[in-house]
């Protein structure tokens, strides 16, 4: 497989053609929460989603997303005290100032109230470590930007409530397939690993650091999951 041709990674296989109707009911359009700090990208993703028959809410940050989902950023109890318009899918940019898409993904998956909501990550950078990290944390798919209509049409496959059950047997196979792909890629990548994702590498600016807020190891785009500091920071924020 030519690595350059791959533009999205999925955690499990989906037969998109078999899905004629949207969950939860045929009369209701699925509601997508789109998170992106870029104004231009928010406009584009909103249109992409609307034209694909989704209802859309766009927000500019992870913390706004959590507020919208009824999960206050600072509280770890996960109880709903804000607006909670039912969300059927979250699609989020990875690289955002403050809370990254990965951080948002983690918060959603850690919440008993929200973890069933499928999360899709978008990123302009095709970094294998980043992709793995997101898929392992529970993202349904990692889409390489710019997002196209065909990417959005695929999202319908994630709306089914019982998609986890029906795909359980496939998950194992998919995970193995992903691991194999990763191993193959890693052999080639050893010499030209994206430095921006290795905190231990020689000093080079992280891919999407933002200097306005002090970078915390778990939310900065350059954090590498196996670094002890990142793990420690993540543990602090756990429920």
């Amino acid at each position, binding site marked *: 497989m030519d690595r350059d041709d791959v533009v999205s990674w999925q955690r499990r296989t989906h037969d998109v053609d078999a899905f004629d109707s949207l969950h939860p009911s045929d009369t209701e359009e699925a509601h997508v929460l789109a998170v992106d700090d*870029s*104004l*231009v*990208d928010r*406009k*584009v993703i909103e*249109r*992409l989603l609307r*034209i694909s028959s989704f209802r859309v809410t766009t927000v500019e940050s992870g913390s706004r997303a959590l507020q919208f989902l009824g999960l206050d950023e600072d509280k770890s109890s996960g109880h709903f005290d804000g607006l909670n318009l039912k969300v059927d899918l979250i699609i989020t940019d990875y*690289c955002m100032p403050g809370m990254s898409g990965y951080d948002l993904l983690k918060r959603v998956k850690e919440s008993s109230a929200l973890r069933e909501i499928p999360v899709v990550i978008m990123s*302009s950078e095709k970094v294998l470590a980043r992709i793995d990290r997101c898929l392992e944390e529970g993202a349904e798919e990692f889409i390489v*930007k*710019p*997002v*196209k*209509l065909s990417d959005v049409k695929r999202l319908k496959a994630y709306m089914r409530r019982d998609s986890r059950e029906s795909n359980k047997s496939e998950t194992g196979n998919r995970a193995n397939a992903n691991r194999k792909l990763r191993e193959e890629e890693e052999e080639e990548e050893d010499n030209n690993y994206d*430095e921006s994702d290795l905190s231990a590498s020689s000093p*080079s*600016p*992280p*891919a*999407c*650091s*933002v*200097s306005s807020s002090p970078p915390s190891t778990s939310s900065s785009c350059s954090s590498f999951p196996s670094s002890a500091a990142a793990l420690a920071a993540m543990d602090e924020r756990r429920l």
Partner: protein
Amino acid sequence: MEVGQMQRRLVEFTKSLFVEGFLDGQFLQLQQLQDDSNPDFVVEVVSLFFQDSEKLLNDLTSALEQQDVDFKKVDAHVHQLKGSSSSIGAQRVKNACVVFRSFCEEQNLQECMRCLQLVKQEFYLAKNKFETLFTMEQQIVAAGGSIPATEITSF
């Protein structure tokens, strides 16, 4: 000029933008998102890009003029510009940003300043091209014609 002639000019001009690398496939995606319910979508997004990015270019300029240049900050701005130019299919702007980022990584101030000039050049060139494109479209619509869909088979 009659409508048919205007339409032909538009098709030729649009093709040239692809051939010369100003636009890439993502622009075609945007055009697909435009319909009767959203007839000005492309103009709106592209205008938003130029408004939003103008500020980004100003921020970049001042960031590079600092005593102690914060290359992380510069890189973050370029990353943003790269992302949004990519989203509208402004290929040459995006490519200029890619080069720029590599010099940010090297913390090479001189090259970064040169890159900024190149990015600005591409930015204003793209703006010019888009304005021409939209003006041509407007003229066709004003004359009662419809905008021909962009065919990608021949280039």
